[in-house]
């Protein structure tokens, strides 16, 4: 079976959401605002009238580039409900790239922030060019209502204010399944732009798959604060929530100094599913001491890890520390969002794997296209209703990955004899850093345009927190005074912040093979040497702490976990604490300060203090 037996199409879904049963139900909740399903229904009907005025018809492409989250969500769903194809363009996109995309995509209209029209004047030429001015939440509404005052007149030339005067239009009864629902451009060079086209059938059948796998109902409350201009943000967030009339909670953008607040939101908003990228999980694991109980609420079900490879050690450590299951999802923008799922059910859950395909068929093939036996590595191919229609106006790129309805993922996988898939590597030249895909060539292309650069190469190296980091190596022209700083500033002009290399190394030459191709392995080794020269570790702190704890608290080392505290270890009373500290001091040959001993409230805490103490000597 490659597609769910039945799913709701857009027409049925939005008709259902407009019924009184959902009138007061929440659709999206942010820290300050709430959108109800009634508001969503009203908006898409008014938008329908507006689109009618512009004479737009099913399948017309509209570029959306709005910084305001609420407006992005409402506009995307308005287009979806009216059978128009949304092209989501991150407001962070640099001008040159935005221009190329506009040129190539031939949209019928643009709905974007005022700045977008200033930076890309060509966008004004479209018959429908709507400049967005988000509605400000009105203050003092209670008093207004009490005094019977009506809202002051607003500017009716901007979107969405101009919708106010319109009466609700009617939504199309039926949208053809093969009509493109939305287009997302993946990272790539200007010569090879890839706009992934997802049809209504692909989107809605996959929403059905996701709802079923995650067990969503109208009681579900999804926490998803990923970027809305990526599939995992918009599709596995507001769109998935709307599909089941659930709630999507987006409290605030992810920041390291607000991790505690984000975890508190799990309880505060009664979250049932938390959709995150592995980097977020890695940062939570590092910086959220004392929040171990965050997922122990009566509502919470599981974490859904998306976008990039979830490392096995992080997966295990996180699940153990927070007592929570992490469902690992494998998918591409080309498959809407998912495809293979490890969990939540026990029969599909295995740490370190991407589980099993759901509503898709998977094959693993060698270079010749022959299927390989279980246990052997090969390229992962996927087939299912949720596979994209193709790349917009890019036939060669489409045929390269889509052959006889099989999608070549570019990922190398191994299937175990009992049907679990494990991703072991990558064929395609792409790196995933903090859940964001980056084509190293795109960065190289920009660097090479610098007048003082002879040549350059970019690639990823593995990183504990981000999964991978982008590194660039540059050969400057002789006599030029290029510096890493200057090159980074140059990249900032032409590349989105997430695509800026984390380090740029300058070399006299790049090692090349006989064919003249840059030898990445050699240059990787060079970079690794330079990168490692600053860090050095020799002591096994974990082992020392565990041994001291084992002797002081009289517990076998095998029973100890880094998260153990005086509450979880029976023998850890005040006296044993001193014994523990003294043993640790002896092992390390140093003496702790009073303040340091006072904050050693868990084993991992003791370990990090020991580390700091040794490194500061």
């Amino acid at each position, binding site marked *: 079976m490659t597609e769910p037996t039945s799913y709701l199409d857009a027409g049925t879904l939005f008709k259902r959401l407009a019924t009184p049963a959902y009138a007061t139900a929440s659709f999206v909740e942010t820290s300050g605002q709430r959108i109800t399903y009634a508001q969503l229904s009203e908006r898409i009907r008014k938008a329908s009238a507006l689109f009618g005025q512009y004479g737009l018809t099913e399948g017309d492409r509209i570029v959306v580039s709005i910084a305001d989250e609420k407006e992005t969500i409402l506009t995307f769903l308005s287009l979806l409900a009216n059978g128009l194809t949304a092209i989501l363009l991150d407001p962070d996109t640099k001008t040159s790239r935005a221009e190329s995309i506009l040129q190539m995509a031939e949209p019928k209209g643009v709905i974007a922030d005022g700045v977008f029209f200033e930076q890309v004047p060509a966008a004004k030429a479209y018959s429908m060019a709507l400049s967005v001015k988000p509605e400000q939440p009105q203050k003092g509404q209670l008093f207004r209502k009490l005094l019977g005052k009506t809202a002051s007149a607003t500017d009716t030339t901007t979107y969405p204010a101009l919708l106010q005067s319109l009466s609700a239009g009617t939504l199309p009864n039926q949208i053809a399944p093969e009509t493109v629902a939305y287009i997302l451009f993946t990272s790539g060079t200007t010569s090879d732009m890839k706009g992934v086209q997802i049809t209504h059938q692909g989107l809605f059948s996959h929403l059905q798959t996701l709802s079923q796998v995650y067990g969503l109902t109208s009681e579900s409350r999804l926490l998803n604060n990923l970027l809305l201009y990526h599939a995992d943000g918009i599709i596995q967030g507001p769109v998935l929530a709307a599909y089941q009339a659930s709630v999507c909670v987006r409290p605030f953008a992810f920041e390291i100094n607000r991790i505690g607040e984000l975890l*508190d939101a799990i309880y505060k908003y009664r979250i049932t599913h938390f959709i995150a990228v592995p980097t977020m999980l890695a940062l939570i694991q590092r910086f959220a001491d004392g929040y171990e109980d965050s997922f122990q609420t009566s509502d919470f079900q599981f974490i859904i890890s998306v976008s990039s490879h979830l490392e096995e050690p992080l997966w295990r450590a996180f699940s153990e520390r927070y007592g929570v299951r992490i469902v690992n999802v494998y998918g591409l923008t080309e498959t809407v969002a998912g495809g293979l799922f490890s969990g939540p059910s026990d029969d599909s859950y295995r740490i370190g794997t991407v589980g099993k395909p759901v509503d898709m068929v998977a094959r693993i093939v060698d270079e010749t296209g022959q299927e390989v036996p279980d246990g052997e590595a090969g390229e992962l191919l996927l087939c299912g209703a949720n596979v994209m229609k193709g790349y917009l106006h890019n036939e060669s790129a489409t045929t390269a990955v889509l052959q006889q309805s099989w999608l070549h993922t570019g990922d190398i996988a191994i299937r175990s004899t009992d049907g679990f898939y494990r991703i072991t590597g990558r064929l395609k030249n792409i790196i995933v850093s903090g859940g964001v895909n980056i084509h190293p060539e795109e960065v190289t292309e920009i660097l090479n345009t610098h007048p003082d650069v002879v040549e350059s190469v970019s690639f990823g190296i593995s990183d504990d927190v981000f999964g991978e980091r982008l590194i660039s190596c540059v050969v400057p022209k002789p006599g030029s005074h290029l510096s890493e700083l200057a090159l980074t500033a140059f990249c900032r002009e032409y590349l989105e912040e997430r695509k800026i290399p984390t380090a740029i190394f300058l070399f006299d030459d790049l090692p090349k093979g006989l064919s003249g191709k840059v030898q990445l392995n050699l240059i990787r080794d060079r970079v690794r040497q330079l990168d490692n020269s600053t860090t050095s570790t020799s002591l096994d702190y974990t082992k020392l702490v565990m041994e001291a704890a084992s002797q002081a608290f009289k517990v076998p080392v095998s029973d100890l976990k880094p998260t153990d505290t005086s509450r979880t270890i029976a023998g850890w009373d005040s006296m044993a604490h001193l014994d523990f500290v003294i043993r640790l001091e002896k092992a390390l040959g140093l003496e702790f300060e009073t303040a340091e001993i006072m904050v050693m409230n868990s084993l991992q805490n003791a370990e990090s203090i020991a580390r700091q103490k040794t490194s500061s000597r």
Partner: protein
Amino acid sequence: MNELNWIIAFSVVGLTPMAWLLPGRWQLPTVSVLTAGFMLVASPLSALSLLLTASLSYGLFRLKSLTPAWRVVLSISQSVLVWIIFKSEWPMHQGWQTTVGVPLGLSYYTFRQIHYAIERYKQTLPVHDFADYLTYLFFLPTLLIGPINRFPDFYRDSRRRRWDAVLFSTGLERILYGYAKIVLIGNMLLTNKLAHIIYTLQPNHPSLASYLSLIRFATNAYIQFAGFSDVAIGLSLLIGIRVPENFESPFLASNLNEFWKRYHISLSSWCRDYVFTPLLSLTRQPVLATLGAMLVLGLWHEWSSQYLVWGALQGLGVLIWHRFKRPSGEAKTAQPAWHSNVMHGLGVLITFHYFCLTCLVIQKNNWQAVGQTLTQLFAR
């Protein structure tokens, strides 16, 4: 008692509706303002003393000219100074207390402020501002009747607050339980009925009467205090804040060390974290650290020689237990189940009686009376 009624009434009628009906960001600040208003009416001195010490304990950390060590020392000193002035026997001799009274909730907020200063010095506190700190201190449900809750917990819960019908009804239940404990068990049974029985026993069975009187004092103190804590926890729940438990069936503890992990938990854990552990790390002398912690625990109640002795006796009890306890790592010898049950029961009895006996020194007004009771109990 009268105070408690006012706190309950004002929390239920004034604070709780405001905590839910106002727009989100105004809810808790309004609770604080109303608390301050309540204090101003009930006792202006208390309101001023709290505001002054709170401002100083926060403000001193903002002084750039001071080193961190000086900030924490000065911050703690000012809190402790105010506390000692009002809580020691000295002003009583001066006739102060009759004229100005003791600021309400002084012992609780002094210890909260010390906790705050030390944690701030240790840099373990979450990012917050002065308003957050005031919200923590000016919180009527726990301000006057404890427990000594901690700032990070309070702050975290103030961020996690949500309307929760189950939590709200649990809160109402806890208030009812607490009130019943105080009124029915404490006031009616222990204070009145048992007093009457003791009175009638006195002429013919003086030893038994003394014994019962001893038991009555300690259990009544526990029941009343546990009741107050229930009310505080319940009132906090009505506002959406979960305050930690303060008692866990302490009279079922089988040794004094365990007893103090279950009796007035917020105070004993405070003493562990802010007296015992620093003293231990500083001196590496467990005996000294234990005694120090228990002396502070005693003096928290009142700055008097009686409580000093009472605290010392608690420390002594804990040390004796430590001296004779089975080492934690030693394998338990094969003993029949009844044996360990009997030993455990014996431990519970001894711990309970030891605690009741130590309470004699705070029950009686002078040392002579203590001696008299002891002779009555044991001489005959």
